């Protein structure tokens, strides 16, 4: 086997040095009755080239040439070549968790930079070293709010990505937490009146997403106030982190009562390939006074014994390897390499590049939306402000959808799978990656 250096001669020599006759003898501690005693029934070994052929064939079955306007939590953004080049360095991708700081300063410093970028973008004091993805980050944010408040009731906007909500539901129901949903208005925003009427002193947190699953931008500052009046927290989820290139982070206010308490999200938009939904990179950010409640790893700045600046995993007593069942989370392995992708992408973008990117998304999506409204028979739903997604209700859904598909255009995500009342509605995402030709194809298909 090409990945295993030991030759038969090596094996024999090593066995004889340790006084064994055969490799079989090494497994004597596994009772015979429990041994398999036959070869595994899996396909026979392939050489490198037939392996590549096999996967090329499968990759080819995926219709990659379709033009897609899908977003909904996974966003098609351009990724500069340097991102993949740099994360393909063995020094990064074949290293383990940086438990030995003296030989892991590269990973540690890069994560510290990631934490800083996430804190800057969200406007919060501190962010962690990553969580599995946005959906589990939201679940962790909810558990964190429960730990802080000791309360068990959550009010969650229906306009939070439904798969995220399902994950929160899975996590919370076994801990006896209850998740009630709050509806949305005609503009796509959270129904603040409904929300205001339902927050009381039992509520642990109000949970919203911005831009929400309809692409509508929420005013998180206004949503913080009713929550805080009752001692509840505001948890904000950001599934499209590129929006922070133009929108204020939920922590960016000097008025404490208007500031979010926990901001979670997904940073896939920064340099991480869509990859059929993962691996991506979740994060959680919070205020200074709550960092000890954060789940997952944290990198801190410190000194070595000569006084040089050095980075190191810190506040580890929160984590499972020390606190075990009382840890703030069970997470161990996280998404470090994806966090590195985001860090590199953000470094390449810089403030000007990030703003340009965000504005291109806002403008292009608004432009396509205007054209659909004026050039096609379909109706735009939700008139609130948006980043790069909007909802359109199709006239003759089946016919339009099929026609576009036949033209190689996946026009968006049918929302009825999650919202029965949004029958015939399509969530459309337009980013900098869509060329004018793509846009014209979409419009042509929609208009016909």
């Amino acid at each position, binding site marked *: 086997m090409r990945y295993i250096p030991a030759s038969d001669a090596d094996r024999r020599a090593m066995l004889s040095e340790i006084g064994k006759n055969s490799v079989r003898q090494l497994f004597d501690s596994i009772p015979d009755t429990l041994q398999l005693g036959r070869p595994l029934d899996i396909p026979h070994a392939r050489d490198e080239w037939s392996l590549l052929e096999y996967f090329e064939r499968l990759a080819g079955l995926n219709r990659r040439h379709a033009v897609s306007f899908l977003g909904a939590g996974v966003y098609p953004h351009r990724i500069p070549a340097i991102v993949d080049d740099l994360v393909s360095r063995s020094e990064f991708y074949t290293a383990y968790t940086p438990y030995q700081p003296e030989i892991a300063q590269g990973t540690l410093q890069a994560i510290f930079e990631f934490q800083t970028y996430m804190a800057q973008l969200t406007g919060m004091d501190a962010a962690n070293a990553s969580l599995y993805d946005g959906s589990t980050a939201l679940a962790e944010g909810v558990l964190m709010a429960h730990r802080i408040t000791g309360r068990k009731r959550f009010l969650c906007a229906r306009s939070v990505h439904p798969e995220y909500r399902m994950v929160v539901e899975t996590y919370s129901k076994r801990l006896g937490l209850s998740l009630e949903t709050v509806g949305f208005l005609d503009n796509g925003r959270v129904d603040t009146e409904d929300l205001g009427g339902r927050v009381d002193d039992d509520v642990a947190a109000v949970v919203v997403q911005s831009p929400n699953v309809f692409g509508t931008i929420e005013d998180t500052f206004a949503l913080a106030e009713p929550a805080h009046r009752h001692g509840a927290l505001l948890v904000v989820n950001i599934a499209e982190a590129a929006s922070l290139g133009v929108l204020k982070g939920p922590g960016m206010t000097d008025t404490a009562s208007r500031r979010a308490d926990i901001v979670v999200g997904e940073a896939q938009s920064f340099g991480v390939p869509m990859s059929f939904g993962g691996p991506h990179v979740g994060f959680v950010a919070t205020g200074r006074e709550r960092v000890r409640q954060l789940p997952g790893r944290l990198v801190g700045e410190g000194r070595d014994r000569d006084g040089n600046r050095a980075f190191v995993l810190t506040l580890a*007593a929160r984590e499972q390897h020390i606190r075990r069942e009382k840890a703030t989370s069970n997470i161990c392995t996280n998404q470090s390499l994806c966090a590195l992708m985001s860090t590199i992408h953000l470094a390449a973008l810089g403030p000007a590049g990030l703003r340009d990117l965000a504005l291109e998304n806002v403008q292009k999506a608004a432009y396509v939306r205007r054209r659909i409204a004026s050039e096609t028979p379909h109706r735009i739903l939700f008139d609130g402000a948006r980043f790069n997604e909007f909802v359109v209700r199709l006239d003759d859904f089946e016919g339009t959808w099929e026609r576009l598909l036949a033209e190689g255009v996946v026009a968006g995500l049918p929302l009825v799978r999650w919202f029965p009342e949004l029958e015939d509605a399509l969530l459309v995402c337009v980013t900098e990656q869509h060329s004018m030709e793509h846009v014209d194809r979409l419009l042509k298909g929609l208009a016909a």
Partner: protein
Amino acid sequence: MIPDDLRYTKEHEWVRIDGDQATIGITEFAQDELGDVVFVELPPAGSRIDANAVFGTVESVKAVSDLFMPLTGEVLEVNTALVDAPERVNEDPYGDAWMIRIRIGDVSELDALLSSEDYGRFIAAGGSES
């Protein structure tokens, strides 16, 4: 290293009794087992806590340990200096790093505390009950 004017628990707390009040901290053995202490969490003054209930935690780089109330009582004073200087727990566990002062709620509980000799024997035997 085991002052004989103090009483002890098997959870490695020491207790200095002073009339109807008691001062509580953790022992030299405990701080050594923990290693460099980085964080101490203590209850607010005014809390009433039962014997054997958790009144706080001590964190080191590699471990975290609950602090158990040796006696039932009301917390009168808390050593807030430890919040900014947790390293004092390593430097001076029996002095500067006292943790809380309480009003003793039930004097009959004093009998359950160990003498310095008993505690010395307990740690010589490994310092744990299992």
